[in-house]
């Protein structure tokens, strides 16, 4: 099956700074991909290129179409939440439903209303009267009722408290996601999404530094806490990163066969956050 998103040599410069530097990326159907990178790494630029919101160089196909030239037809199959708190403040909940129903051919109003009925949001309320968490719920209700093939979430839970953040992703996973849908998400709160991801992409300085399925990460990467007596032995195996925790040294290895690492200590799959630090800091060192 052809991928939903296919980018070849995607580049974008702001003056002398490369926001995207020759990025190749493919996203297949039914995946939940986390796009993770430090501030200014090019995450948002990549998403905007994908959504046809910014000009770029290189080849890019979203659902087989060029988002630069066919933005509004691409948007029939793609949904995105840029920063959920930003719905127009004058909009009433009922008007939001009317609008989306009127403008989106794949919107199922009953579905959105069913979701809203589980919240304390009233249809007469205006967005300006809702709390930040409720605005998120409203936006999510709208988006989940759209039968889109690709959902793009850019920092969707920014500024929300932890209860809403957890609920947001749980709802997304339980009530929305299935084999036919694909989700691309960027966030700083990596720990909150790593258990729902199927794929993870690290981006730094406009370049992709890691692109793996979560299954492969367990195979390819290992994190081992080593006692002082074995530190030199571990270093000789070429770890990509090391740091001290409670007097032990934690090493991250990439691509080392299991048997070579045996005996050093307990092998764990590194968390996405740790792996991120290892890849980004390791690349700098």
């Amino acid at each position, binding site marked *: 099956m052809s991928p939903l998103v296919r980018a070849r040599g995607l580049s974008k410069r702001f003056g002398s700074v490369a926001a995207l530097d020759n990025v190749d990326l493919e996203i297949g159907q039914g995946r939940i991909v986390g796009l993770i990178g430090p501030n200014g790494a090019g995450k*948002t630029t990549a998403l*905007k290129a994908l*959504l046809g*919101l*910014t*000009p770029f160089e290189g080849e890019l196909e979203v659902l087989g179409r060029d988002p630069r030239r066919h*933005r*509004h*037809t691409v*948007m*029939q199959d793609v*949904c*995105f*939440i*840029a*920063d959920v708190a*930003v*719905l*127009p*403040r*004058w*909009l*009433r909940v009922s*008007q939001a439903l*009317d*609008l*989306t129903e*009127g*403008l*989106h*051919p794949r919107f199922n109003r009953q579905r959105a209303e069913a979701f809203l009925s589980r919240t304390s949001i009233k249809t007469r309320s205006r967005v300006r009267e809702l709390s930040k968490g409720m605005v998120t719920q409203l*936006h999510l209700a709208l988006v989940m009722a759209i039968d889109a093939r690709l959902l793009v979430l850019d920092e969707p839970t920014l500024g929300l408290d932890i209860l809403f953040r957890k609920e947001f992703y749980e709802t997304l996973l339980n009530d929305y996601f299935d084999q036919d849908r694909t989700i691309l998400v960027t966030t700083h709160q990596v720990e909150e999404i790593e258990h729902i991801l199927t794929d993870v992409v690290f981006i730094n300085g406009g370049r992709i530094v890691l692109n793996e399925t979560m299954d492969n990460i367990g195979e390819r990467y290992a994190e081992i806490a080593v006692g002082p007596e074995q530190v030199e032995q571990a270093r000789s195996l070429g770890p990509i990163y090391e740091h001290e925790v409670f007097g032990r040294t934690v090493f991250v290895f990439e691509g080392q066969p299991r048997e070579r690492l045996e005996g050093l200590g307990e092998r764990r799959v590194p968390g996405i956050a740790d792996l991120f630090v290892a890849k980004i800091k390791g690349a700098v060192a």
Partner: protein
Amino acid sequence: MSNMTILLRRELWANPAITAAPAIIGGLLLLLTILAVVGAISVSVGDDPVDIVEAIKHIEPGTAGPLMQMALASLSVTFNTVMILVITFYLLDALYADRKDRSILFWKSLPVSDTQIVLSKLATAALVIPAVTLVIYLITAFVIYLISGSAVAFAGSTEVLAAGPGALLETTLTLFYALLVQSLWYMPIFGWLLLASAWAKRAVLLWAVLPPVALMLIEDMVFRTTTIAQLLGERVVGVFPLAFRHRGDMDIRVLEHSTPDGDLRITAIDGLTSMIQPGTLLASPGLYGGFVVAAIFIAGAIWLRRYRDES
């Protein structure tokens, strides 16, 4: 097409002033009418107060219609003035508000082209706001007719009551025509305001006003001519002289009445619609030149809306 319907409704939701402003004006005018009828306020000619009831008794027979048309015409001028202010501020905000409150990405997430968005704003300014204004004008005029007609009937003459429907029809048709040609003539102004609204990062009004003013000043300093100022002036006030005609023999005498304080003489046009004359306007190169300029400005606004990346 259904996209356009919902986009126009969106504009009415987002801009309650479109209905609120003419409704408030209508309400105030009704209040003034009631106060005048009960005698709480007085009408003056020069410095001298006029006894309305006394004056009405001196109306020439058969001229209640033209008199009402004149009164309703001044009512429609008031509505039009307010409407032009509403349209101006609406357009200045039209492509700016959702960039300012950062909801633009929500609109961009919907499968609607930026051309449709911009055209929906233009249609709101050129068609929807005038239509709303016309309806509220008609309601106000009808109620004023009922109040004043009943008051005059109470004073002993049913002429106003009888002439009212014809006068309402005449003035409503005339206003409809006036709003239509005004929208056509103002297309380049609408386009310019949309362009300023799509362009400005802040202070939209300044972006809309300063460039033409600067051009006028530069032309005046460099060439010592005032071509741009004349073109702009003609664009702002030039449509009604082209679209209407008025000859002295259209006027009839409505009222001539001597009071101890002074004389009162009123003439009015017998049938406002007889002034309608689209030929001169339709033959005017200014109309079509305006369309071309408007198309360029609107294309610029669409381009900015589509390709500008601000966040």
